[in-house]
């Protein structure tokens, strides 16, 4: 029995010795670890990792942590424990991104981007790169620089069902251009007993997105940013007009039943199953709709203009970005991998496999027409992450909730404007104190 025990111990010792040796052997070739949340892109990332290993001999481990909420918490916990992976993405607003940079978790990629006459930098859509950039006058206290690499591009627009358009007696080749045309369609939808606009407005941020689109259209970028800076109140008539649009949409019959408690997945199912005429969604929906209903006939359009004064703006830019851990011992290899990943061929492969818009502007040649329509929206794209200022979280919450209250008929646009302004004033006073 004792001999058997000794032999077992010896066996364990030998096993660990061999494993230890193999670890040392691997140490010469680093393994790059990438954390992400993109369930729909994971299989393609794994394929690209294999291609990179064949190309460079360096193994890349893509580790998926979903859903995005869980991923977001994991990244924060890893930042607190200083055990972030070599490459990771950040979900959240620009201030979260800034916090990671301030805590020295993210490598400044400016020098890499600008090497060889800006060759890497110039390969991206400028608006995609802008999301990962901090300019000289940013209000976050971050030194100017580029701190992330866009992997794909998105725009958030409206989509309309061409078949249902025909059924309503509308021209499927001519989506509404003005708010009035849009509202008129609402009346037709109501009469026909159909469902109008669907979107994930139960999750709130998509409401803010559309409201901001109209704010840019009605009062222009400068006034929107002045509001965020606290120079223009939310009780300004232009803001009341923005809030009123939601009441008009509700009153016209444009909004689908239960829109304020709708999650985006349900909205996507409804639109894909041809149960709703319009949807407000991001360009990622092309892949989602294709999976749910490959025969769906639809087109993308900008939200119909409420004013001629300023151009309509939509949210767009980098759909997802990767950052390099500033404390990683593999950071040079990680940068090399990201340069490869954002190369023309890899981006084209990623775009075709996942139906997402590539971040590399040279990879746009072979994308489907519907995706091209979303890509054309990039001309109108803006994003809170490139504004250089950000609204207080409690104000955005009051803003989103307020619009929900307007839609359910609980509050008037004026009431909501007043309440949002109150929260804003309280936050400004708190910041000053």
């Amino acid at each position, binding site marked *: 029995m004792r001999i058997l025990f000794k032999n077992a111990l010896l066996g364990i010792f030998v096993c660990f010795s061999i494993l230890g040796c193999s670890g040392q052997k691997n140490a010469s070739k680093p393994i790059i670890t990438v954390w992400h949340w993109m369930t729909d892109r994971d299989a393609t990332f794994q394929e690209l990792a294999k291609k990179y290993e064949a190309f460079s001999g360096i193994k890349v481990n893509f580790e998926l942590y979903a859903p995005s909420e869980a991923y977001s918490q994991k990244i924060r916990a890893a930042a607190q424990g200083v055990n972030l992976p070599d490459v990771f993405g950040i979900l959240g607003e620009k201030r979260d991104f800034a916090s990671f940079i301030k805590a020295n978790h993210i490598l400044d990629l400016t020098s890499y981007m600008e090497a060889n006459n800006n060759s890497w930098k110039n390969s991206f859509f400028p608006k995609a790169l802008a999301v990962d950039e901090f300019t000289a006058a940013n209000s976050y206290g971050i030194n100017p620089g580029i701190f992330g690499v866009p992997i794909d591009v998105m725009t958030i627009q409206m989509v309309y069902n061409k078949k249902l358009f025909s059924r309503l007696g509308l021209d499927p080749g001519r989506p509404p251009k003005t708010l009035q045309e849009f509202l008129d369609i609402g009346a037709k939808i109501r009469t026909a007993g159909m469902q109008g606009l669907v979107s994930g407005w139960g999750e709130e941020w998509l409401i803010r997105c559309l409201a901001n689109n109209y704010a840019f259209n009605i009062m222009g970028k400068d006034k929107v940013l002045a509001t965020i800076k606290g120079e223009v109140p939310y009780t300004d008539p232009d803001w009341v007009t923005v809030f009123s649009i939601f009441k008009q949409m509700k009153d016209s019959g444009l909004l689908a039943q239960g829109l304020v*408690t709708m999650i985006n997945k349900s909205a996507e199912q409804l639109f894909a199953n041809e149960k709703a005429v319009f949807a407000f969604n991001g360009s990622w929906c092309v892949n989602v709709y294709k999976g749910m209903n490959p025969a769906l006939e639809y087109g993308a359009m900008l939200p119909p203009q409420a004013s001629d004064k300023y151009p309509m703006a939509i949210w767009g830019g980098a759909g997802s970005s990767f950052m390099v851990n500033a404390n990683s011992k593999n950071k040079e290899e990680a940068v090399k991998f990201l340069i490869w990943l954002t190369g023309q061929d890899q981006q084209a492969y990623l775009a075709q496999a996942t139906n997402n818009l590539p971040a590399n502007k040279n990879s746009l040649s072979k994308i489907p027409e519907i995706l091209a329509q979303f890509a054309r929206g990039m001309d109108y794209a803006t994003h809170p992450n490139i504004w250089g200022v950000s609204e207080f979280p409690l104000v955005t919450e009051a803003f989103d909730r307020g619009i929900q209250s307007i839609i359910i008929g609980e509050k008037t646009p004026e009431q909501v404007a007043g309440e949002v302004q109150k929260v804003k004033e309280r936050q400004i006073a708190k910041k000053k104190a």
Partner: protein
Amino acid sequence: MRIRDSLENYAFVLPAVTIFSVFYIIPFIWIFQLGLFDWDGISFTRVFVGLQNFKEIFLQDKNWWQAMWNAGYITLIALTLQNILAFMLAWACDREIKMKNFYRVIFFIPPVLSEVVVGMAWRFIINDIDGANIINRTLTQIGLPNLVHNWLSDPSTALSTVAVIHCWKGFGWGFLIFLAGLQTIPRELYEAARVDGASAWQSFKKITIPLMIPIMVLVGILTVLGTMQVFVLIISLVGGEFAGHTSVPVLRILASMRGSRFGYACAQGITFGMVLIIISFIQYRFSKKAQ
């Protein structure tokens, strides 16, 4: 000898005390400490603000108290509707009825389902455009078309609908504990009561209820603790806080964390924890008196 006995006793409780301290008490103290700071949850620098976060919660944060009120409402429905239903079913299954083992299994299915699955399933049952609209169809078929309603997207019914679905999901736990409690009551007591001429109602009132009070308190405490912390079901049913109508404390804590107010979220967590401890303590004291 006495010292040795004492040391032995301490040695036995030491693992439990250690685990409880490491995983409950120390984190609680640490979270309280974080609640005294203005911190975004990422940076290494924190600004000490003293009790400012707690002051804001108690004096300014109306959304927080609305969330507490909503959670209290769901809890009240769970304490009454859910637990009465659980008790009645357990009482029925404790008697000699046919297929009682089958019922036991059936009643325990909802609690073992994930809250996301329950939420999605009920969303499908209730909603009309993205679901089967079964409830409204049934109401129409039984001649109650005036009750047809957008149950989840009407602010006046959303919270109650969430509460009822939560009860459906949760009553199985209470059922199981009540059933276990009922089976510990000696059958001789009922036989003796019957011999003495007691009716079924008198036996229930004079034997079952008094002997079940400790179990009822336990189920009550577990119901309060479980229901006050509900949030996954709400997200899967209505997507979130629905203009505050389905807001609950855990969703508020998550909103603070998302808004980079980690210190404030910790203060909310501590406040919430203290409220739950106080409620449980009151229930415990109340049960002691009742016994």
